[in-house]
């Protein structure tokens, strides 16, 4: 069981406010990406985020662009787990492909506020927030394999290196 501080947001948070399009070619280093994460959603986030913090959101987190920096900016800011009522399809895939864990858990976000702490036990498959226990959705073996490899491209390279055909 590990303890994590949470940042809580609403529904339909789009990739433009997670990481603005205009920065996608001007900012490249992990530190630069992290410094602008959620800039147009929550100006306090980039300065206040600490490694291990978790984002808790409502429905359809990450709608909009396919830009993967909307995931990597958070990853470089130290966020390795996001919990939402639902994710946009592209954002969900980008999380997996970057080795960031997107958890679909309903009913949690109204129990916590930014700055609260929740507990996570991935081995046991549970999240505890405000004294309530939530089950972590089971990951398919293929998603597990990508996450374990640290992302999609690292997995692909490992397979090429091993000479696998698929």
């Amino acid at each position, binding site marked *: 069981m590990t303890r994590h501080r949470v940042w809580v947001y*609403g*529904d*339909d948070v*789009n990739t*433009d*406010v997670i990481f*603005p*399009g*205009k920065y*996608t*070619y*001007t900012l490249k280093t992990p530190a630069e990406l992290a410094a602008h994460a959620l800039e*147009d959603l929550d100006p306090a986030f980039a300065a206040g985020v600490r490694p291990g913090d978790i984002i808790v959101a*409502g*429905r*359809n987190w990450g*709608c*909009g*662009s*396919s*830009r*993967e920096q909307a*995931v990597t900016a958070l990853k470089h800011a130290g966020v390795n787990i996001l919990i939402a009522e*639902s994710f*946009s*399809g*592209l954002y969900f*895939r*980008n999380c997996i*492909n*970057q080795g960031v864990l997107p958890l679909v858990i309903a009913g949690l976000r109204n129990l916590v506020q930014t700055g609260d702490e929740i507990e996570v036990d991935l081995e046991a498959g549970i999240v505890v927030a405000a004294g309530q226990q939530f089950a972590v959705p089971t990951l*398919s*073996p*293929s998603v597990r394999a990508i996450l374990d490899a640290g*992302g*999609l*491209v690292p997995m*692909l*390279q490992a397979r*090429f290196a091993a000479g696998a055909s*698929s």
Partner: protein
Amino acid sequence: MASEVKAQRPRTLFEKVWANHEVRPQTKDLPAVLYIDLHLVHEVTSPQAFSELRARGLKVRRPTQTLATMDHSTPTTPRNDQGIIPVLDMQAAAQLDVMRKNAADFGIPLFDLGTANQGIVHVIGPEQGLTQPGMTIVCGDSHTSTHGAFGALAFGIGTSEVAHVLATQCLIQNKPKTMAIRVDGRLGPGVTAKDIILAIIAKIGVGGGTGYVVEYMGEAIRSLSMEGRMTICNMSIEGGARAGMVAPDDTTFEYIAGRPAAPKGEAWDRAVAQWRELPTDEGATFDAEVTLDANELEPMITYGTNPGMGMPITGYIPDPDQERDPSKKLALDKALRYMDLRPNEPLLGKKIDVVFVGSCTNSRISDLREAARMIQGRKVAEGVRMMVVPGSQQVKRQAEAEGLHEIFKAAGAEWREAGCSMCIAMNGDQLQPGQYAVSTSNRNFEGRQGKGGRTFLASPLTAVATAINGVITDPREMMEMAY
């Protein structure tokens, strides 16, 4: 083969295209491996993917099934005396150079800035005849759904997946669910494809299509030109859908015929015969169905900060206090504060600062013809900036051959070079804080068109009518005057 196909259960367009591209079918534990026919690449989402390939010693598996262009960070300012489009921003220039180097090093064809075929990635694919029915098409860009207008399965991917497709020409995919969106009836005057898709998204919401591939069908869709169908499919992602598709028909084949990459001679006949097999079979079922009546549609406009916050142009801004869902109430309240709008007021008559006609949603020749027809003999209102940004160099040449650019310039609008421009405001074309714009693009997110900028999404007709009056205007008023 034909009898074998007929013996199967009825299938949707999507299911046929999916099945034709399964390298390995999906199992209980493993996703499918899907073959990709066409991979489109642009300068913004590809550099990290090429870096990954280099770092890991990987090659591009099928360079000839890959095409690169430059569109997002390219300037759209008019050419200088030497016919060159000046790139003012050093970082943008560096990024364009990276695209050139990557294309050259990996043997990928590139439509470079300033060359005859450059343009927005979702305009040039169809324009070249590369986008064809039954194909799988991907690009590191969410509006790749545009190409579904041809009966292709086309969707956006992230940069890790761009690297994966470059290296393998395949993608790992879970099979999406299917949704039919049927639009029956006929559109009234002044109501366009853009209004259909804004009405659909207002109905299903920005997350309503999540997990689905949508097939648009019904009389109103069948009656649209290919360019109208592209406008609809383009914004599928704004409803959360993985992709949008329209069954190919004679309208589709006529559009493709004779384009540079279209099959020729006997190969054309064979291709058309195959394409005619693609439409959804009688009796095939969808996981979800939505219907709209085109007869009831009005020109649409958004009032909020996502594309689902839209209403008929004659409508009144919704009141957060009437919203029972607390999180929707919060979102609406926040959106109206950002937009500095008040509930229960109309948008008609609202003063605006900028009109943008362009983007992968509405920058094709038919969009520009409609816009020009309305503005001909009229002027952009004083104090309003109107930009017209063609989707590609080819669209630009065609428009100029028809004299459309002179109509725009005479009206006081800016006629610019091809690119994404103010849709995403990465290239310097942007709103100032607090400005209001009516935009024919696809996203009205906070800051999308410039920090603090406020966007109303609408059709080219509504945009032009608004530019002329300087206030949000129902285009039908202006059409009565014009016709």
